C-alpha cells in the first residue's frame, strides 16, 4: 500500500465531525467537555445539536462521574479533554465510575504525547496509556491518522462499553485513503517485509513507513503493522510477526513501560520470546519546544525507528 503522505492533518480534527455524524445518524450521544472544547474539537457538536453537548468547566473528576450517570440511563457519552487530564486528572473516577461498572463512556483525549509542544511537561501525556490500559474492560485505541481516528471514534460510538481514544495535536502525515476500514482489535499490515517488524501506533505509523522505505534502500525488508488498538491487543498478529520476521520494534509516543511496547513485549515473552527494541520515552518527562523538534529530540520519528531496527537486527538470533 502506498501512503498518501502528501496530506497532513491532526487526529483531533476527526472528533467534532464524527460526533455530528453520529448524532445525525440517530445515535443517542451526549458529549461532555471540561473547558478545552475548542482544542479537542468537540465543541463543533454544540452548533448542530446543542442539547447533546455540555461543558462542565475545568472539573474533570465531576465530568467523568456525570458521564457515568448519563450512560447509566442509556446515553452513549463522550467525555473529552487533554490526555494529561483524562485519564490523568480523574483516574479514580475513570476506574470507579466508568470502568468497574462497565458503563458506555468514551474517553476522548486529545493532545497526547510530547508533540503538544511548547506547553511543556505538565501538558505532555506520556503515561496515559499506562493508566487506560491498566483497567480491565477498557478498550484503548491510538489512531494512526485522521482517517483512522474518525473510524475509531465512530466505532466507539457504536460499540458498547468503555473506550479510551488518544488523539494528537499537530498535523501529521495522513496514512490512509478513504477506502480504509478500521477493524477494532486487529492490527493492520501496511507493508510486508521479512527481516523485522515495526509495530507502531499513532503518528509513529507514518514514521515507521518512512523508516521502512529508507531501510529497503539498504536491503533491509521491514514489515509495518499499525497496532491502533492497544487493548485488547491483537496477539495473533504480534506472534505471527515474531515467527515470520524474528525481530520486533515497537514505536509509540509514550513511556516505554505501560503502553504498546510493554503490551507487545509481554505477549511475546509469554508465548514466543523474540528480540524487541522499543521506540518511546525513557525515564523522563517532556519539555517545551516545537513539536517536531521534540519528536526529534526524543527519537520519536523515522530516524529513531530506523536506528531501533538496526539495533534489533544485531540481536536477531
Amino acid at each position: 500500500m502506498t501512503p498518501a503522505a502528501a496530506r497532513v492533518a491532526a487526529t483531533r480534527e476527526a472528533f467534532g465531525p464524527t460526533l455530528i455524524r453520529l448524532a445525525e445518524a440517530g445515535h443517542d450521544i451526549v458529549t461532555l467537555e471540561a473547558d478545552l472544547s475548542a482544542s479537542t474539537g468537540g465543541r463543533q457538536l454544540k452548533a448542530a445539536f446543542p442539547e447533546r453537548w455540555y461543558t462542565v468547566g475545568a472539573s474533570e473528576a465531576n465530568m467523568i462521574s456525570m458521564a457515568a450517570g448519563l450512560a447509566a440511563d442509556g446515553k452513549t457519552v463522550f467525555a473529552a479533554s487533554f490526555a494529561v487530564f483524562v485519564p490523568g486528572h480523574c483516574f479514580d473516577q475513570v476506574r470507579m465510575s466508568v470502568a468497574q461498572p462497565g458503563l458506555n463512556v468514551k474517553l476522548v483525549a486529545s493532545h497526547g504525547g510530547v508533540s503538544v509542544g511548547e506547553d511543556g511537561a505538565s501538558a505532555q501525556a506520556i503515561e496515559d496509556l499506562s493508566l487506560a490500559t491498566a483497567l480491565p474492560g477498557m478498550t484503548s485505541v491510538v489512531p494512526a491518522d485522521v482517517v483512522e481516528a474518525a473510524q475509531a471514534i465512530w466505532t466507539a460510538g457504536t460499540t458498547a462499553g468503555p473506550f479510551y481514544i488518544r488523539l494528537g495535536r499537530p498535523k501529521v502525515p495522513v496514512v490512509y485513503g478513504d477506502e480504509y476500514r478500521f477493524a477494532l482489535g486487529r492490527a493492520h499490515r501496511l507493508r510486508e517485509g521479512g527481516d523485522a517488524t515495526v509495530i507502531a501506533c499513532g503518528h509513529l505509523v507514518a514514521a515507521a513507513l518512512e523508516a521502512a522505505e529508507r531501510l529497503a534502500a539498504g536491503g533491509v525488508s521491514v514489515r509495518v503493522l499499525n497496532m491502533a488498538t492497544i487493548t485488547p491487543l491483537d496477539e495473533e498478529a504480534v506472534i505471527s510477526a515474531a515467527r515470520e520476521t524474528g525481530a520486533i520494534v515497537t514505536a509509540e509516543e509514550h513511556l516505554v513501560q505501560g503502553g504498546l511496547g510493554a503490551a507487545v513485549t509481554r505477549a511475546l515473552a509469554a508465548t514466543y520470546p523474540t528480540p524487541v527494541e522499543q521506540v518511546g520515552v525513557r525515564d523522563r518527562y517532556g519539555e517545551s519546544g516545537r513539536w517536531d523538534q521534540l519528536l526529534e529530540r526524543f527519537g520519536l520519528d523515522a530516524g529513531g525507528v530506523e536506528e531501533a531496527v538496526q539495533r534489533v537486527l544485531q540481536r536477531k538470533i
Partner: protein
Amino acid sequence: MTVSTTPDLQATAQRIRRHIVEMTAAAQSGHPGGSLSAVEILTALYFGGVLRYDPARPDWPQRDRFVLSKGHATPVLYAVLAEAGYFSTDLLPTFRKLGSPLQGHTVRGKPSGVEMSAGALGMGLSFCIGQALAARLDGRDSRLYCLLGDGELNEGQVWEAALSAAHFETDRITAIVDRNHFQNDGPEGEILRLWDVAEKFRAFGWHAVQVEDGHDLDQLLPAFAETAAVRGRPQVIIAETTKGKGVSYMEANPAAWHGKGPSPEQLAQALEEIGP
C-alpha cells in the same frame, strides 16, 4: 403541613437497625456506625412515600434513583432494599462473604436496586447530575436522591458537583448529608472542620434545609416535601445524626465503630438495646 409518622415506619427502622448489627457481626467487618446514622433517612425515602420505585422493575425508567455516595454504608442500603422487596432478607447474612452479591462497598446492579458503584468517596453527586440531564433529555420526571457522608464533604469532587448541579439547575436532585460529625480517623473537629454546611451549599446556589434531628421521621418527611417543591435549584437536606445511633457502646465511641463488626456478646447487647 402535617405528617404523622406511623408506628409501622418506626418498626421498619428498628428492623433495619437489627439487620445492620447482625450483618456486620456475621461479616466481622463492615461499617455499622455510618449505617446506623442513616437509618431514618433511608426509611423516610423508601417507606415514607418519598422515593418512587418498584422492586419488581429495578430498571423501570420512570423510577426515582437513590444513589449511596457514601458507599461504605452498604449495611443500611442492603437492609432497606431487602425490606423493600428487592431481594430476600435471607441473603443479608452473606454480606461481604465470598460469592455473595452483597459486596463490601456498593457495586452497580449487585444486587438489583443498587444504582451505582461507590466506595471511593465523592462521586455520587456528579453521577446524579448525569442522570438528571439524561432524564431531562428523555422527558422523564425522575428525581435523584444522593446520600453523602459529612466526612465525604472533604472530597473536592463534591464541590465540583455542587457548582455543576446549580449551574445546570438540576432541581430534581436532592442531596442528603448524614451529618454525624465523625469520620474514619475521628471527630470532624479534629480531622477537618466543615463549619456551616447549609451555608456552604447556599453559597453554591442550592436550597438548603437543616433537620435538627435526623432520626426523627416527623422532621425528615417534611424536609423531603419542602425540597421536592423547589424549582430551579438543587436541594440539600443537612440531617443532624448520631453515628452508631441505637447502640449505646457505638454512640459512646463512634470513632471505634466506623469500620468493624460487633462480637457475639456485643451483638446480643445491641439487639437488646434496639428491641424487637
